[in-house]
């Protein structure tokens, strides 16, 4: 498509500044969900491993740790995200230095997504056949070997699917974070689409979100299929 044709087509729908605003918003959403998604994975997977292995009959059985952590995860998960956004402000200031902007949005997003992903990954880890763990124990495997060679690889297809779901949820939540000044597509949709009745912007945001979620889901499914040898 030539630049001229693009400008013409764009001109029918919106002004150039509007378009640039949408691109900026999209980029901000990608950064927010990308960073908080990565952090959620790094925090959530160990959480899930601890929740599974410290439970009764687990290879690192420790009910005190298990129950405490389980309680913490449940507590975080029971706070509605819109409340978490506000309640986390002191913590956000402490970590990021400000409570406004996409950097600041990453803190509550991670606080919400990490425990969510931990629970989703926990389900996959629990589905690993106990007999496989026993077989590894019977070989004289250390507990770290069981984690590295049995538990994680066997649960990985499920963990990837679970992470995809987490990312999709994060895209939605990041739009909500926009409502409290975090930037991103949500911010644009509310300020322009809702408060200024610019329907074109609203529709454009919705379409971009649909495309982003579709790409995420497609990529996640493809990866999960690729690593699943069951």
């Amino acid at each position, binding site marked *: 498509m030539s630049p001229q044709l693009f400008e013409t087509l764009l001109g029918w729908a919106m002004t150039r500044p509007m378009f640039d605003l949408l691109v900026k918003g999209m980029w901000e959403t990608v950064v927010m969900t990308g960073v908080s998604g990565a952090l959620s994975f790094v925090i959530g997977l160990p959480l899930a491993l601890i929740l599974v292995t410290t439970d009764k009959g687990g290879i690192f059985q420790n009910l005190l740790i298990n129950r405490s952590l389980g309680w913490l995860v449940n507590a975080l998960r029971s706070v509605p995200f819109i409340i978490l956004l506000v309640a986390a402000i002191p913590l956000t200031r402490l970590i990021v230095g400000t409570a406004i902007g996409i950097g600041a949005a990453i803190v509550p997003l991670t606080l919400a997504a990490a425990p969510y992903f931990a629970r989703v990954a926990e389900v996959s880890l629990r589905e690993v*056949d106990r*007999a*496989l763990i*026993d*077989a*590894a*124990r*019977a*070989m*004289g*495997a*250390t507990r770290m*070997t069981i984690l590295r*060679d*049995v538990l994680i*690889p*066997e649960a*990985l297809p499920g963990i990837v699917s679970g992470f995809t779901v987490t990312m999709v949820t994060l895209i939605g939540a990041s739009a909500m974070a926009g409502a409290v000044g975090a930037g991103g597509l949500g911010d644009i949709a509310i300020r322009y689409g809702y408060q200024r009745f610019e329907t074109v912007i609203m529709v454009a945001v919705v379409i971009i979100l649909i495309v982003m979620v579709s790409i995420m889901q497609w990529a996640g499914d493809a990866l999960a299929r690729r*690593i699943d*040898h*069951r």
Partner: protein
Amino acid sequence: MGQAGKVAGADVPAVQLDHVVRRFNDRPALDDISLTLARGEIVGLIGRSGAGKSTLIRCLNGLDRPQAGRVVIDGTDISTLSEQALNPVRRRIGMIFQHFNLLSAKTVAENVALPLKIAGLARPARIKRVMELLDLVGLADKANVYPAQLSGGQKQRIGIARALAPEPLLLLSDEATSALDPETTQQILTLLKDVNRQLGLTILMITHEMEVVRQIAHRVLVLDAGRIVEEGPVARVLASPQTETTRSLLRGLSPVLPADLVAQIAPEGDQALIRVDVYGPDARRPLLAGVEAITGQPARLLHGGLNDVQGEPYGRLFLALGTNDQDKLAAVVAKLKPETTAIEVLGYVPATV
């Protein structure tokens, strides 16, 4: 490898259990089990489901702990060892499973390599050994495929290769052929027999199928409600089971009088009917000629016959003696008693049967 202070050598049994007790909620799963497995022996452990077979095998590698008694593996008492201290002992015990328990996320070669990785073998040495093992089980061409692409028999071969990887002292087989069809079962049993002969490996076969024991085991232990109710050479136990449990496990393998014949047995009649169990050298004796010499009548074989367990004959014969004379009957029993495993007078039948 945790063997300090013990005398290594062929005289140390591979496995020794002394008065092992394991209870689950006060219900004994193992009730005072004592047994010894000599090196190079294939022992069949047979019992119904729930008899305690799996608990017993789990006690041998410390996956389960007995509440009382000692479990001694190659001279090392493992019943008191910590999980960490157990690992070196476990590395010397291979195990194969009914459902193979291969890792789905690893290729065949990676599965077989896992015990070697655990043992700390360097990568090049691992690869070399894996190829040797895959050759041994005849699946060298499957090194880079995933277990899901293999048939049940192939999966079990990989299971065996994996179990043999660290050159174990003992191989535990937990219903390893129970999920396989008869033909594949044959191939797996042949493979196990070969590795027993070539490597001098001690094998404990847990099964509920007497046919498996018949084909491969040197000795059989019968487990019922957590107790060993019968044990002995396979041919002896097959020829003349001593307990109801064994008899029921043998159903189909051991000849039983047909119902119409049983119906004709009476306390009096034309001809005495006896049951004779024989195995080994006894089964090669000219038994019937001896009987005829006493009674003066040819004995008739009404039912039963001889079978073979790894070259050793065994069997159960139901004989009509051709006479009902008490003295002759007593003389026949007296003559056969020392020459057979068991003999029983069942009653009398009409000469017409």
